[in-house]
């Protein structure tokens, strides 16, 4: 890394010339190699001769190395998934949420091919803070088919921070669980007087489902301005389940994302303007009654990061419009006879301001304020000639708005003894309202919806919540080999639009609501109160041997949620003949829940030699127990015990990874949701990566032994049910041989 344009050429000769110097010299030169340059001293002394008044020894301290590339997560409970780790997954997955599952404590419910909903320590997507480039993306679908991570592509993601434990209140409000922060590559600038033209092209192919895709990144910059284009495309057909489980219907997808990022260096900091377009022409959902037949989204984000004498100022403004359309793909009957169109439109806009004020010896004070506006319209056009779906549009959500004003105050201080404390309080004001609704029509078959609409329209639908949150996080360095972190947080989240304002009571209308992949129908509840979670988490990190040494992390936690939004049964669903089906109509209600568990992870270097390369063993394991304290049963979608063992080997330009993952049997299931039990299984993945100059080639196989299995949180295979009449959980993906190539220039 060149640290000073005019000093750089001097460093190398200096290093060479003194190679045979004394031991002490070599220590010093070792420092030189890290960017500290003698000519910098010379230059400094030449340009700023010491005044006679202070004619005394000037002491030059060793340099402070300020790295922009973070490799560490902001807290011990959590991980930062670096660009190199994401690169390893590019060829094997187009689903950012699937990549997160390599972090202990993180799992995900199956959904569409790029829409997996992340779960952190038993709390799912809607309860987490998910930020893409610092901005939250409002949900725009009754089935949550377009969650924030579906707008990201592993091909263009730079890094992801995952905080599984207690997080500071400045990281976001209106959530009770962990934090996921996705970052795209920061803008690059050229050195003074130069121009920079750089980029990367990548492509991949996956044998299972004939998936393929590619991406392009281009940057043009001088030392003050930078323009970056990022684009990606990916598509796949239905995938094959492992063993003899056959094709999983309704699992195909296609999407493309494009963004343009303009950045400028100002005297006081950095200004960024980023706009983009996302289009997904189709995405099958094997565990939903509907498929996504179009999702288009446009966004514009502005960001200013200022550096001042008093501290930092960070200002963001965001705008996004989404048009989302659901209907049936071919496996579910197609749209030749009209299908069942369902349209959702969302406008969202907001700002966030944060000031980090340096208080010298008293630490840092963070003040922040944000406002997020969400407007949502959801209507289902009539289907010509269909008795149930006509003659009018079904107005599912009529111009609902959800506005949130969040304010926080946070204080951070580090003591020289190795203690760091972060304490903060936060208030989120949430205002929600929605217009009157109406069913398809007023026929006999539509009576449940007619009555429900009348009741809903008569009710007061305006809601206001004032949610107080607070968190306290302490980190203590016990010794140079051990750190401990302890955190307590009370966090509050208001119900989302669909939890509060879904009103349909007819079998079909309620089956259209829910992001749980369980085949049940859901009815909203105007009486829902915000969820309040008290979380205690701790993490002990023991390490030795430096950056490439060994590491062990032990992270237990306990969460108790008051007014946890769960579901109770309203009615059995019956088929046309009046016979019972495996599904029920459920309604969202506030209950009490607790979740506790422990995450373990570690790694140890195995060997390092010039002939045998370097090898490293990694391991992780997670266990948790989630219980609904109101009905005494297990919570829905809780991952059973799971563990993974990985072997990484590197010799020359060849990297090899072998990953063995194990998931135990899921026998604690939620009876309310008719959750299926699943068997234990183990999967083996291998990958080889080879670099020749600026080309990186990868070849790998997922589920090498083509093991047949059902993922515990995969949901029920409704796409198959429609075609075969047999109900089964969604099969796990069978063997896929993946190849990828990346060219940097």
């Amino acid at each position: 890394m060149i640290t000073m344009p005019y000093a750089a050429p001097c460093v190398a000769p200096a290093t060479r010339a003194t190679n045979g110097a004394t031991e002490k010299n070599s220590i010093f030169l070792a420092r030189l190699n890290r960017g500290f340059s003698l000519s910098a001293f010379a230059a400094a002394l030449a340009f700023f001769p010491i005044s006679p008044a202070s004619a005394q020894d000037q002491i030059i301290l060793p340099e402070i190395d300020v790295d922009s590339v973070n490799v560490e997560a902001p807290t011990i409970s959590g991980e930062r998934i670096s660009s190199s780790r994401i690169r390893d997954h590019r060829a094997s997955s187009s689903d950012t949420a699937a990549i997160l599952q390599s972090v202990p404590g993180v799992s995900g419910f199956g959904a569409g091919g790029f829409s997996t909903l992340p779960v952190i320590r038993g709390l799912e997507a809607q309860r987490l803070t998910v930020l893409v480039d610092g901005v939250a993306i409002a949900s725009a679908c009754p089935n949550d088919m377009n969650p924030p991570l579906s707008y990201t592509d592993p091909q263009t993601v730079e890094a992801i921070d995952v905080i599984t434990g207690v997080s500071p209140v400045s990281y976001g409000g209106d959530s009770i669980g962990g934090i996921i922060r996705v970052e795209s590559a920061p803008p690059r600038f050229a050195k003074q007087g130069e121009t920079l033209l750089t980029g990367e092209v990548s492509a991949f192919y996956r044998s299972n489902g004939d998936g393929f895709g590619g991406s392009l990144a281009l940057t043009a910059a001088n030392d003050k301005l930078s323009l970056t284009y990022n684009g990606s495309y990916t598509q796949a057909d239905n995938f094959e389940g492992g063993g003899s489980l056959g094709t999983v219907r309704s699992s195909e997808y296609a999407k493309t994302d494009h963004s343009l990022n303009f950045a400028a260096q100002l005297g006081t900091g950095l200004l960024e303007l980023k706009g983009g377009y996302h289009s997904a022409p189709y995405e099958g959902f094997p565990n939903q009654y509907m498929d996504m037949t179009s999702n288009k989204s446009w966004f514009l984000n502005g960001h200013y990061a200022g550096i001042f004498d008093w501290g930092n100022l960070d200002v963001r403004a965001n705008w996004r419009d989404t048009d989302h359309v659901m209907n049936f793909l071919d496996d579910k009957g197609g749209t030749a006879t009209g299908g069942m169109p369902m349209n959702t439109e969302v406008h969202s806009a907001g700002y966030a301001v944060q000031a980090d004020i340096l208080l010298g010896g008293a630490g840092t004070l963070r003040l922040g304020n944000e406002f997020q506006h969400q407007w949502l319209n959801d209507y289902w056009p009539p289907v010509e000639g269909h008795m149930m779906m006509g003659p009018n549009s079904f107005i599912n959500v009529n111009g609902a708005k959800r506005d949130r004003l969040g304010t926080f105050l946070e204080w951070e201080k580090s003591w020289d003894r190795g203690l760091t404390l972060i304490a903060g309080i936060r208030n989120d004001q949430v205002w929600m309202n929605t217009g009157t609704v109406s069913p398809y029509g007023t026929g006999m078959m539509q009576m449940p919806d007619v009555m429900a609409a009348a009741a809903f329209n008569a009710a007061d639908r305006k809601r206001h919540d004032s949610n107080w949150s607070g968190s306290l996080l302490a980190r203590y360095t016990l010794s140079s080999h051990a750190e401990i972190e302890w955190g307590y947080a009370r966090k509050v989240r208001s119900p989302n639009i669909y939890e509060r304002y879904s009103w349909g009571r007819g079998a079909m209308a309620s089956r259209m609501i829910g992001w749980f992949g369980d085949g049940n129908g859901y009815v909203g509840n105007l009486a829902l109160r915000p969820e309040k979670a008290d979380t205690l988490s701790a993490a002990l990190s023991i390490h030795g041997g430096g950056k490439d040494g060994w590491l062990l992390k032990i992270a237990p936690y306990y969460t108790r949620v008051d007014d946890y939004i769960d579901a109770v049964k309203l009615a059995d669903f019956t088929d046309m003949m009046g016979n019972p089906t495996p599904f029920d109509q459920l309604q969202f209600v506030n209950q009490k829940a607790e979740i506790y568990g422990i995450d373990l992870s570690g790694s140890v270097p195995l060997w390092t030699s010039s002939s045998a390369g370097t090898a490293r063993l990694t391991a992780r394991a997670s266990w948790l127990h989630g219980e609904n304290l109101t009905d005494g049963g297990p919570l829905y979608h809780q991952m059973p015990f799971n563990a993974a063992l990985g072997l990484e080997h590197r010799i020359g330009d060849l990297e090899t990874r072998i990953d063995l993952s194990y998931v135990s049997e899921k026998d604690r299931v939620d009876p309310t949701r008719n959750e299926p039990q699943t068997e234990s299984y183990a999967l083996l993945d291998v990958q080889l990566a080879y670099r020749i100059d600026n080309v990186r080639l990868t070849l790998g196989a997922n589920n090498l032994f083509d093991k047949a299995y059902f993922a515990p949180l995969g949901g029920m295979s409704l796409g198959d049910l429609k075609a075969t009449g047999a109900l089964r959980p969604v099969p796990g993906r069978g063997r896929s041989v993946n190849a990828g190539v990346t060219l940097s220039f």
Partner: protein
Amino acid sequence: MRSGRIYLTEGRGTGYGQSPAWPQRWGAGLAAASCCLLMLAAIDANLSGLVQSVPHREVNSIKLFTPPPVVPPEPLSQRIEVERPPASQAGKSASEAKKTRIQEQVAGKAISRPTTLSRSAPAAPTILQPSILPSQTKPSPPKPEVNPVQVADDKKASALASYQRLIWARIAARKPKGLHLSGLAMVRFAVSRDGNLTSVELASSSGNSALDKLALRTVRNASPFPAPPVNLETDQLIFTIPFSFH
């Protein structure tokens, strides 16, 4: 009509988690917040008291290898640890070290500027020896017993070295996050007898004003420093610290 009302009453009063009325909620929130702040202030006061005693101890001691309070960047410490000079070398006088350093600069650097160096000869820099940098990977060995007949100069040198390390560690502990920009900014600052920062300025710019500001404010934010050792007869100590951003 009626069912709507029923929904509402359910929401506001009945059931397990009764939510209190508006003023109560705000009151409770404010009370909790002030309690929190009070508690934090108390902790802060206590811990600061504890920390302040540390520098005094350091000043009086002549130990060069006190374990550091702050963890420095990893690769750096590894090197130092391996090549730590023997205890006897530790007492080397400052002037001797200075001389060696200048020679290194002249001899070791192909493009060195002798004129520059000689011009600033009266204020030739004393480069903090890497050996006094804190080590991370291993706690430092017990401090060597000091020979009672050692001269005052040695004491002074080691006290100064120890103080330099303290200053460096304090600044390093407050180092900012990078801005994804490269540059080397040198900050020169003066510390008075009581540890106050009397001046801070840019000795050389990184070429980017944001990086320069970041470097300057990091030093400012680390002050006031602990008072320098009493046996140093200077009115103020002048330090230069490079910030390497990348």
